[in-house]
């Protein structure tokens, strides 16, 4: 009788050592991402789109 071969358990990824410098940097970027984006950016995006549409209309 042939034994049913058990599937090999998936190897876990080696744990990445906690690095306080990386954690602090990630937090800095997360905090910036949580800030409200200034209206200038929305204006810029609108302006780019408008410029592009105007050009097509000509």
């Amino acid at each position, binding site marked *: 009788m042939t034994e049913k071969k058990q599937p090999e358990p998936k190897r876990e990824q080696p744990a990445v050592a906690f690095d306080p*410098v990386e*954690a602090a*940097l990630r*937090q*800095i970027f997360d905090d*910036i*991402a949580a800030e409200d984006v200034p209206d200038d*950016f929305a204006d810029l995006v609108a302006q*780019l789109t408008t410029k592009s549409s105007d050009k097509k209309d000509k």
Partner: protein
Amino acid sequence: MMPEPDAEPLSPAALDAFKAQMVALIPALRGFARGLCRDRVLADDLVQEAMMRAWASRHTFIEGSNFRAWMFMILRNHYYSGAKKRARYTVWDPEAAERILVQDATQESGLHVDDVMRAIHRLPEQQREILLLVAGAGLSYEEAATVTGANMGTVKSRLNRGRAGVKAILEGEKASAVA
């Protein structure tokens, strides 16, 4: 603003996708720019300039290639091309730093983020940008290699040396504070 190119090969759907990808990257680009120049206002100007440049060069972007790396590369190149004009920002300015980041110690890392930023700015530029790109913005080694024009081995090496450098600076400061 950069001149608009005459060619307009992208379809309306592709243009919308291009714009959406650019908008989605704004927070990470702001973080990277702020880490590079240490000035909130200048950083936002840099990001907006990079967005305008990207838009003006949209016909050169190859659909399916890595948009994130492309955008970060434009921002980085724009920053370095004007770095000499902004030499005043290369000197550490505690007041400017306070404008950038006024935060409490992070419970996650146990380090003050402003201490980390100050230490990062004492690193060689090449190590600093890799730390910002990989550890901060979450780019892969491959993306960071594309952005900086270095090979993957160099990226890993700069990252490791940057991390070690920051720790050494912070430990040195702690030791001198105790002494």
